[in-house]
């Protein structure tokens, strides 16, 4: 992203591969003056041996200084030594092949450009500096007579021109390649970022977890001062202002917090724009009451939206993204907004998956007709409740309800009336039981209720009996209830259900429309007999 690229070592060409290419180029460059000596007789100003022997020696040094088994630090130092030797060799063959007017200056250009691109830009500049020093020395030595002057026609002007063109070329190539490489590195970083986000999001099991992950990405990777993710559920629109419920996860410098917001989203605000726009919205957050609650004091924000198919909307809000490390933030880098869009779309599809799993899980545990839990959910919930109550030493009540004369209701008023009665009782159980209670359809016209510690089973059962009598269904509707409790009537789900079922049978035998509490089983006799 736009922070200074955090180069991941695995995204770079390995050191050994780079050194292999550098060695290949060095050997080629070392051989080139020998070839020039052979092909260009007119440029010869030294003997064959004076060119070939240094070439062989330098090639051996090049091979030796590219040995791969050294530690990295030592390898870099040894490579540096080899490049110094290369420079001396090029200076020498310059003297042997007609000086600045011969072929060696061109070979030197190839050499420094290749090293700039293959080793590193800094290495290229270093080698160019060394080559310049050697070149000046050779020229100076020839001028003062330390070396015989092999190219009297070449003056200081030739030297300056060669050095100028060499440096312009190296600096230009290095700068251009660095700019290209930086862009490639950023793109690779973005790609890695989205890949990692996708993998992390796959492990999320709730929409809030996904939102938290996206908000942290916005803060840490998209460089926002704060980032918020709103999971927006629209509850309908009135007066052109949609009523929404939003679960908001806010990533700020000191951590992540969760905020719940509900109300109407006023038209013309930043969030309203984002909810209706297909493109990211970049504007001030000052006039938006929702953002004022979620990100108090936020200035300019970027809002990116993605729809969760058939459900909600994910909105990523970034406060001043990309501007944290910039001296004068004027706008937002486009690459950063694109990454935000991709990450938000990915988050939306993950939220869709988690919501789908939730819906499937709920559907698998719910009785389709009555809306209360089904038998499988009851078995799981009752077993877990019994375990919890036993471990914590708490009480628990189980109520078994059976609609009285249900077959007669069906026969007299039709099965639709029977279904209506079941639905009505289911609705009663869903809405009128105390907090912590669990209700399920036990089978046919029987329901089961599990009541937590502190809720009187008998009182609740009697209240249910009264409420069932007053339900608006065709014909009179009453219910018989059997009540058992832990630990008096059993210490397992099976024992409690059996005790409640026996009590229910007693209620039926006693005339229906009543509550019967199970008789406690006999306590074990703990007295020691002698």
């Amino acid at each position, binding site marked *: 992203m736009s922070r200074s690229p955090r*180069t991941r*070592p695995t995204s770079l060409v390995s050191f050994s591969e780079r050194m292999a290419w550098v060695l290949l180029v060095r050997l080629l460059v070392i051989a080139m003056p020998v070839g020039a000596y052979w092909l260009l007789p007119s440029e010869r100003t030294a003997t064959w041996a004076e060119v070939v022997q240094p070439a062989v020696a330098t090639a051996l040094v090049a091979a030796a200084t590219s040995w791969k088994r050294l530690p990295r630090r030592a390898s*870099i130092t040894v490579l540096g030594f080899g490049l*110094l030797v290369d420079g001396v060799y090029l200076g020498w063959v310059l003297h042997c092949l007609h000086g600045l007017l011969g072929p060696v200056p061109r070979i030197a250009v190839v050499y420094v450009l290749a090293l700039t691109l293959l080793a590193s830009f800094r290495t290229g500049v270093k080698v160019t500096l*060394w080559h310049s020093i050697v070149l000046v020395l050779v020229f*100076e030595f020839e001028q*003062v007579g*330390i070396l015989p002057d092999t190219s009297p026609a070449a003056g200081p002007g030739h030297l300056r021109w060669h050095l100028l063109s060499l440096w312009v070329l190296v600096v230009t190539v290095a700068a251009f390649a660095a700019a290209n490489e930086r862009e490639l590195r950023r793109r690779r970083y973005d790609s890695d970022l989205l890949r990692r986000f996708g993998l992390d999001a796959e492990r999320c099991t709730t929409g809030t977890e996904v939102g938290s992950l996206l908000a942290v990405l916005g803060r840490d990777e998209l460089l926002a001062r704060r980032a918020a993710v709103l999971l927006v559920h629209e509850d309908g629109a009135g007066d052109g202002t949609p009523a929404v419920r939003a679960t908001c996860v806010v990533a700020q410098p000191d951590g992540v917090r969760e905020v719940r917001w509900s109300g109407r989203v006023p038209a013309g605000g930043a969030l309203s724009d984002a909810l209706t726009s297909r493109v990211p919205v970049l504007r001030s957050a000052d006039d938006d009451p929702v953002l004022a609650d979620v990100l108090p004091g936020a200035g300019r924000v970027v809002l990116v939206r993605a729809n969760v198919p058939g459900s909600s909307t994910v909105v990523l809000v970034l406060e001043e993204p990309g501007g944290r490390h910039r001296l004068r933030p004027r706008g937002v880098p486009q690459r950063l907004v694109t990454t935000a869009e991709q990450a938000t779309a990915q988050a939306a599809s993950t939220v869709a998956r988690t919501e789908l799993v939730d819906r499937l899980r709920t559907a698998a545990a719910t009785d389709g007709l009555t809306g209360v839990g089904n038998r499988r959910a009851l078995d799981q919930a009752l077993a877990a409740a019994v375990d919890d109550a036993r471990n914590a030493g708490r009480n628990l009540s189980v109520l078994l309800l059976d609609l009285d004369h249900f077959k007669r209701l069906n026969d007299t008023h039709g099965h639709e009336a029977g279904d209506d009665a079941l639905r009505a009782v289911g609705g009663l159980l869903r809405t009128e039981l105390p907090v912590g209670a669990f209700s399920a359809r036990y089978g046919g016209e029987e329901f089961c209720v599990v009541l937590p510690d502190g809720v009187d089973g008998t009182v609740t059962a009697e209240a249910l009996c009264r409420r069932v009598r007053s339900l608006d269904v065709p014909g009179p509707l009453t219910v018989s209830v059997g009540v058992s409790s832990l630990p008096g009537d059993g210490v397992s789900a099976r024992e409690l259900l059996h005790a409640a079922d026996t009590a229910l049978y007693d209620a039926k035998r006693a005339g229906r429309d009543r509550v019967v509490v199970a008789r406690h089983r006999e306590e074990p006799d703990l007295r020691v007999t002698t």
Partner: protein
Amino acid sequence: MQQVAIALVAQRQVSVGVLIVVAAFLLVQDRLDRSDPKLAAAPLVPLPDLPYEPPTNHEDHR
């Protein structure tokens, strides 16, 4: 080469300047590129390919 060395000694004024420039460069040259990420942060060798698991010998399970 011997002639060059002898000439270098004979031309003392030149050789002092030469030595200063060369020595200064040699002192700093190793520091110029040793911290470049391409050399300092790159993995030493290419990441190896991930191997397949060896085939299960069904005879062992009988």
